[in-house]
């Protein structure tokens, strides 16, 4: 069994990466890697809206976290993913991992973020300043990134 300390949160509230990183400073860790996805402005975007499947999301993220913990010797892995309406520059997702060696932490973060782009029940809708909105289409590049871990 993996002894990775897994923490998963699906939430509407914003998060602050600093305290999340502090939590990841497990005893014995040599390194902490993390990634924060934020709402990118441009192209007339005014806000992002994220829908999810309330009963499935937590379990999907926990499964991705367990998969990562099986692949790499991690001390801790944290995933936070928001839903609801997000303003420009707001944080969307945080993935952080601590490990004895840096490669495990870095690879686990890359794997986890790739996986949750294609294997967690979230759907993004873009709202624009002209009042229009549109669902984000799945990106072939995201599926290629996820597939490289198969």
């Amino acid at each position, binding site marked *: 069994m993996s002894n990775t300390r897994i923490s998963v949160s699906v939430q509407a509230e914003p998060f602050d990466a600093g305290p999340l990183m502090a939590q990841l400073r497990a005893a014995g860790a040599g390194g902490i890697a993390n990634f924060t996805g934020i709402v990118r402005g441009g192209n007339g975007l005014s806000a992002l809206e994220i829908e999810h499947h309330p009963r499935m999301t937590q379990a999907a993220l926990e499964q991705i976290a367990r998969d990562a913990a099986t692949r790499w010797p991690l001390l801790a892995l944290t995933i936070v993913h928001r839903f609801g309406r997000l303003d420009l520059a707001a944080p*969307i997702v945080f993935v952080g991992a601590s490990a004895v060696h840096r490669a495990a932490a870095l690879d686990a973060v890359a794997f986890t973020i790739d996986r949750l782009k294609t294997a967690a029940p979230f759907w993004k809708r873009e709202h624009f300043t002209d009042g229009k909105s549109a669902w984000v289409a799945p990106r072939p590049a995201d599926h290629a990134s996820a597939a490289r871990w198969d």
Partner: protein
Amino acid sequence: MSDHRPIRIEYFAKFREAMGRSAEDVALPTAVGSAGMLVEWLRERDEAGHATFDDSVLIAVDDVMAQADTSLDGATSVALFPPMTGG
């Protein structure tokens, strides 16, 4: 034994909008025995279903990701959603 069974179908994201509802309770013919057959049944049921569901549809049976051939035996809910775009 009835030739229909009650099942709840949930729609997410663009499927929810296209179907004009987030969920519905239907009486499904028992001959519709798999997740894939349920999608086909919706496509044949009405124009909205026909226009909405294509090969990209993802299916969860009782909140677990399913394949087209996943059985609906004993299932109480099926969720249909487009490819995920989280992260």
